[in-house]
């Protein structure tokens, strides 16, 4: 009887592993300044070598360029797949992507330093008389052989905080060929009727770079009118 009880109680321990609990967080930055991207479109991958099969833990950046993963303690390699994101990623040889080693022992914050093709500077978005007006300048960061042209600049408005080419209620495009000076660009977009009515919109400006899939965005602003 006692033996049976003993067996029963020792059998009560769960044989599961604890869920991963260490947080790896950070954001995409260029010289300390955050890089905005489209929600759920720019992926990153974490590899944990040494366990036989090799497969990435894939996740995407949020639209302010932040990322976070819950992981086990261990050594990881962080990388971004080829041709993803509006920036350059180091390549160690043609087609071979460099990776960042992460030794995870506790919660850790690691900002990812990348070199974007362009940066949107001094974005100033205001809402007035049914319109969103934006003034900003664009800095061309990569000017060497890898430089790329601007395909277009877009001002997006949405009623929720997700603002991009796929999530918007209004958009104004400015073709790259129509930009004469990268400093002091002005754009405006009409705010359409919103049902149910709300007295605010979210807006940001994005740059589409020729030959690059993902756009780079200015910080999101909430405009109340």
């Amino acid at each position: 009887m006692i033996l049976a009880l003993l067996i029963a109680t020792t059998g009560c321990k769960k044989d599961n592993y604890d869920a991963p609990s260490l947080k790896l967080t950070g954001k995409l930055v260029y010289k300390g300044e955050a890089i905005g991207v489209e929600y759920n479109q720019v992926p990153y991958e974490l590899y944990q070598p040494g366990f036989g099969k090799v497969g990435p833990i894939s996740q995407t950046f949020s639209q302010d360029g932040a990322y976070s993963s819950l992981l086990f303690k261990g050594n990881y390699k962080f990388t971004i797949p080829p041709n993803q994101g509006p920036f350059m990623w180091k390549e160690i040889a043609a087609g071979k992507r460099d990776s960042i080693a992460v030794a995870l022992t506790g919660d850790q914050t690691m900002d990812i330093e990348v070199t974007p093709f362009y940066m949107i500077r001094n974005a100033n978005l205001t809402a007035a008389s049914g319109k969103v007006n934006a003034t900003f300048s664009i800095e061309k960061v990569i000017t060497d052989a890898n430089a790329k042209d601007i395909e277009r600049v877009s001002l997006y408005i949405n009623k929720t905080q997700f603002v991009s080419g796929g999530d918007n209620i209004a958009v104004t495009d400015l073709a790259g060929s129509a930009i004469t000076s990268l400093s002091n660009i002005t754009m405006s977009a009409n705010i359409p009727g919103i049902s149910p009515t709300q007295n605010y919109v979210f807006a940001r400006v994005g740059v589409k770079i020729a030959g690059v899939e993902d756009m780079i965005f200015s910080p999101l602003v909430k405009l109340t009118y």
Partner: protein
Amino acid sequence: MKKISFITIFAILLGTGSCKKDSAFLDVPPKQVLPTELAFSDPALVLSILGDLYNRQRDFSSLDGHPLREYPLSPSGDIVPGWITFADFSESFPSENGSSYIVQRTGWGYDEWRIWDYGYIRDLNLFIQRATAATKLSDGDKTRFIAEARFMRANYYFEMVKRMGGVPLITDPQAYDYSGNVTPLQKPRAKESELYDFVISEAEAIKDQLPNDVNEKSRATKGAALAMEARAALYAGSIAKYGASTPQVSLPGGEVGISSSLANGYYTKALAAAQAIINGSAGSYQLYKVLPDLADNFAAVFLDKSSVNQEAIFVEDFKVNSGKVHPFTTNNQPFSISDEGLDAGRLNPSLNLVEAFEKLDNTYAPLATKDASGNPIYYTDQLDIFAGRDARLAGTVLLPNGSFKGKRTDVWAGYQLADGSILTSGDAGQLKPLPGTSTPVQVTGKDGVINGQEFRTQTGFYIRKYLDPAVGSGRRGRGSDVAFIRYRYAEVLLNAAEAAFELGQVPVAAGYLNQVRSRAGLTTALTPVDITFDRIVHERRVELAFEGHTLYDMKRWRIATAVWDGAPMTVNDLVSNIGKATKRNTQPYGLWPYKYYNPGNPNNGKWLFKEILPSPVTGSNRFQLGNYYSQIGDDVLSANPKIVKQPNQ
């Protein structure tokens, strides 16, 4: 005494029964498994093996569906219903609430569309090896069987290269020697061009070993081999030519991407293979021109399985009462004409596709819903708005008030009242009185249109292609046996036209296009000046709608990222630039008919139409560069380190 003799006999029997040698006793031939030599001794047995292999051929769209996740093979055996394999890319709307994700997602996962069935490839390779070694088959049978297996293998590799780019090209049944070392079994990916070269060379090698028979449609023939060759060479040519515009979609080893210098060579091969069919060297294939009504005639191309139909070249056939049937008609029949109560109306073609069908004078025009000053146009009959269009419209799409099984569909969204408001209800059975009256009447169609009401059309249209008019075809128990056409003569003509156009032989291209178009009632011939890339794209879209070509065509022309750019569509997007290859097509619109109620007004009781985005459509399709070639599974990558990853993933 009797007892004793029984016992003796029993003892003797026991004694003799155990006289067999131990080895012979243990060596009993299996009763459930046919040994290889036996299976390959009789043509009927070999044909049954081939039948299984034919059943495992893979198409993009399939009337009876396909395994939920082909790779890794679904252990649960879940099947994607056939109609869903036709329901994407904004060419249609899924009127089944459980499938609304198709119009609510904002794009496709990188693993979408991937296949990797090397088990099937191995079975084909084993079949070829065993059939080659067979001794009891006649030479004629043997040659044909082997050629058929090689056709299927090439066709499956073709299906893989369309989705995955270059894959390991394995043409022998690999055997593991249990040495613990699997390295010799690990093959790297071949170049994308090598896969296409393989398909083309296999087709050339086997075409004269296959029967030259127009009436053989469910087994490989010379026509099927040539049609496969023409399509494969055309795909390779266009990837070579248009791939130059997307240098990001390529790998340094050539596993993805084909050098643009090879384009003309492939186009030349495509044209030659297609012309071999057109000039009759594979049998007297021709366009189906039997019925006087051109729309009915076009629909019958897919329904007529008699020898009159010399358009179909290679099909996946079905047969009622044989176990191989499909529920396409059950799933998609008009609601009020359904044989099966609530089982109906899932696949609704979109207005985006309907607008693409030209007027009979070869011009593009949106369906006229409003006059120049913005007032609605009133039509006496719902079908009037579609009058004077390409006959393939009514042959592909079941229009409002269209006829099916001798009945007319009842499609309308409500009454448009004189004060501008709309009187509608949540269901056709829910009656309401019209203003100024007290008798409740029906205020919406029995076949829709009501937002979110599944199994009835939510775009205003039902599918007509493949919809089986046979009695009982809509019942679940009986099912339908309409065949799925994998290769048909009209596509061969379009392939030839495209290849000729790309080679600069524009008058030749115009000739082939005009053959296909005149069958559809577009009798004003296109002149060589009219033939543009947009024309080629347009013609394939309307002729081959719902035949599993859309994705592959958009991919090989590298315009998928423009057509499905992820931006929501406006009505203005919908009605402008019709016939332009890169026209945005991210959300499926509907065309909703309303009955005008204004007693005393001359338009009272007439129909007006509105372009409406069905409310379940909340996403917009975005095709990313990483979607051009489907992701290779992580387990494949880790099991075989020689496999390189896809670009952009």
